[in-house]
């Protein structure tokens, strides 16, 4: 069981993920490749957690696995939501939770909206699926859209997605997720496709909504700036595993894992005077060819002999968890 002592105080756990692995099929022959290699974490009620990593680290798959959205993925482990193991549910029962207990918003709102349906219908759909009547559903859709700052929402209920701007569409997608009053919102890179101004607006919205509703948010991103502004806790993923997990303040100020250190160093700062920007040398390993031992060791400048032999476990030091031999067994 993941160690709960790293949680920010007084938060009952909402989702507990235990040794989750995700295998994706490879070609037609039945082989599969392990993308997510055993992750453990907890998201508390109302907590805002960011999941950071480069593309290919497995963060999106992990998020989708929580909702079991990938039909082709093979999952193992345990995902406990409010006492139920989500991985053991039938797809049908899982469907009942989707939209109502756990909801998701995605990266590119245009491709996540059905071009043939009005946005009013699409927002209301989450409720209609649950059998709520047309009029009531529409009313609630309207109120959520209002809440999210879509002006003249009433008129626009009958417009189509292509008639909206990017920022508006993201609000629509957010509305679609929130209208069912979920307890956990998974946001998969919701700001990546937006320009900075709109990013700000959406983050403010999320902030507002999550505080007001006591909504837990699992925020997937590769943008550390966004993490700093929004999350309470951050988990860093590398090559399918979590390598660091702790409060945003401490992790950013004193990163423990070399990868995290590299990530933070790579963020350009206005008060720096550099000739070149720093980038972590090398590239993340493809899932088919993971290095032995710690997957980061080939790129790590602090590695030693143990690193290519043994996979480091995710262990607590103080209130952070780190998967690195440098911190093995050390207390704080």
């Amino acid at each position, binding site marked *: 069981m993941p160690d709960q002592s790293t949680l920010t105080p007084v938060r009952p756990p909402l989702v507990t993920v235990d040794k989750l692995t995700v295998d994706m099929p490879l070609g037609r022959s039945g082989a599969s490749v392990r993308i997510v290699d055993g992750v453990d974490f907890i998201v508390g009620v109302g907590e805002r957690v960011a999941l950071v990593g480069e593309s290919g680290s497995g963060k999106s798959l992990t998020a*989708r696995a929580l*909702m079991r*959205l990938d039909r082709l993925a093979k999952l193992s482990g345990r995902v406990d939501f409010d006492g139920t193991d989500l991985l053991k549910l039938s*797809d*049908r029962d899982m*469907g*009942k*939770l*989707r*939209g*109502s207990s756990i*909801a*998701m918003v*995605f990266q*590119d709102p245009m*491709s*996540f*909206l*059905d*071009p*043939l*349906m009005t946005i009013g219908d699409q927002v209301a*759909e*989450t409720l209609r*699926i*649950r059998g709520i009547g047309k009029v009531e559903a529409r009313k609630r859709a309207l109120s959520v859209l209002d809440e999210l700052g879509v002006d003249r929402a009433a008129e626009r209920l009958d417009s*189509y997605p*292509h*008639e909206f701007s990017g920022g508006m569409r993201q609000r629509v*997608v957010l509305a*679609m*997720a929130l209208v*069912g009053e979920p307890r956990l919102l998974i946001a998969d890179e919701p700001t990546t496709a937006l320009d900075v101004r709109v990013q700000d607006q959406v983050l403010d919205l999320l902030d507002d909504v999550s505080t007001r509703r006591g909504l837990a948010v699992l925020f997937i991103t590769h943008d550390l700036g966004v993490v700093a502004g929004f999350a309470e806790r951050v988990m860093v993923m590398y090559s399918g595993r979590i390598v660091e997990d702790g409060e945003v303040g401490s992790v950013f100020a004193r990163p423990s894992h070399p990868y995290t250190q590299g990530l933070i160093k790579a963020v350009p700062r206005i008060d720096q005077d550099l000739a070149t920007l720093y980038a972590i040398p090398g590239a993340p390993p493809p899932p088919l060819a993971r290095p032995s031992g710690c997957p980061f060791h080939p790129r790590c400048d602090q590695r030693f002999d143990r690193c290519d032999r043994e996979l480091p476990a995710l262990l607590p030091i103080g209130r952070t968890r780190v998967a690195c031999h440098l911190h093995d067994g050390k207390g704080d």
Partner: protein
Amino acid sequence: MLAFRAYSWFLGRRLGLTLLTLWGLASLVFLMIKLMPGDEAQMAAGADASAAQIEAVRERLGLDAPVIMQYLSFLGRLLRGDLGTSIVTLQPVLADLEKVLPSTLELVFIAMLLNLAVAIPTGIVAAYRQGGIFDTTSRITAVMLGGMPAFWLALVLQYVLGSVWRVVPISGQQGYGMNSPVISGAPTLDALIAGNLAGFFDALHHIILPAAVLAALFATQIFRTLRAALLGVLRSDFIMAVRAKGATARHMLVRHALPNSLNPVLTLSGTQAGAMIGSAVLVETVFARQGIGAYMFNAVAQKDAFAVLGSVMFIGTVVCLVNLIVDILQLLVDPRIRAAQLGSQSQ
């Protein structure tokens, strides 16, 4: 208003293309007439016409004039609806064909219904359970059916289902004693209009196998197209978003995946409507039904040259008109085809 201008421009272009096509067809038919071996006047006059009669016909058809004049007068005759006279029935070809056209249209209509009613659900299930047993089986079936000659399938099924198992009637359009007054020429429709319920079901019974055979080939195309389109849509992001809302598979398929995949299917079925009319000849002859195809077949068998060529002109025209109507309908029905055709962007 912009939309109106765009619409009328499109309509104009489409009509223009149709007229051009009809003209091309007419020219081809004229070419065919000229290609025929033997004396045209003699063929028109009939096998046992006297020399004087032949000369009279030659005079009437203006066959002594230069080719250009003949061509123009031919076009003129066409525009007046004169498709020649059948040597066998001694009636104007156009009149003969008009009588039997409804029967063919009825066959094609029911075949189209069967086609879509079978192909679409099959395509949906096959795509959703890609790689499963149903998918593989239906794809194999589609390949098999697609390669079979329609007339052979008709013969075999006629034998097996008609003679051996006696499930359907072997041929004809109506059973004995079930004759309804001929109002439109389409047996099922006529029976309905006349209120003859027993006759209606009888006519349906007679039409079901021919329609099924006609539909079979085209159904494989629809199946393939729909399945491919659905596979693409099912992989798309918004489908995942719909599932994230908690939609059941059925809801997702019917309300989201299908509508977004119908575009190519609609276009294809539009094309098929015309093609079916052309292929009707094969089915009508085997099942001894009346129709423009059967008429043409008989004309060929009896070496009724003008009836054959008149049929070509007629059937070709019908197909072109059907295609035109379908294109216009598609325009009205699907906003995205509308956008593509009219070049409008609603951003």
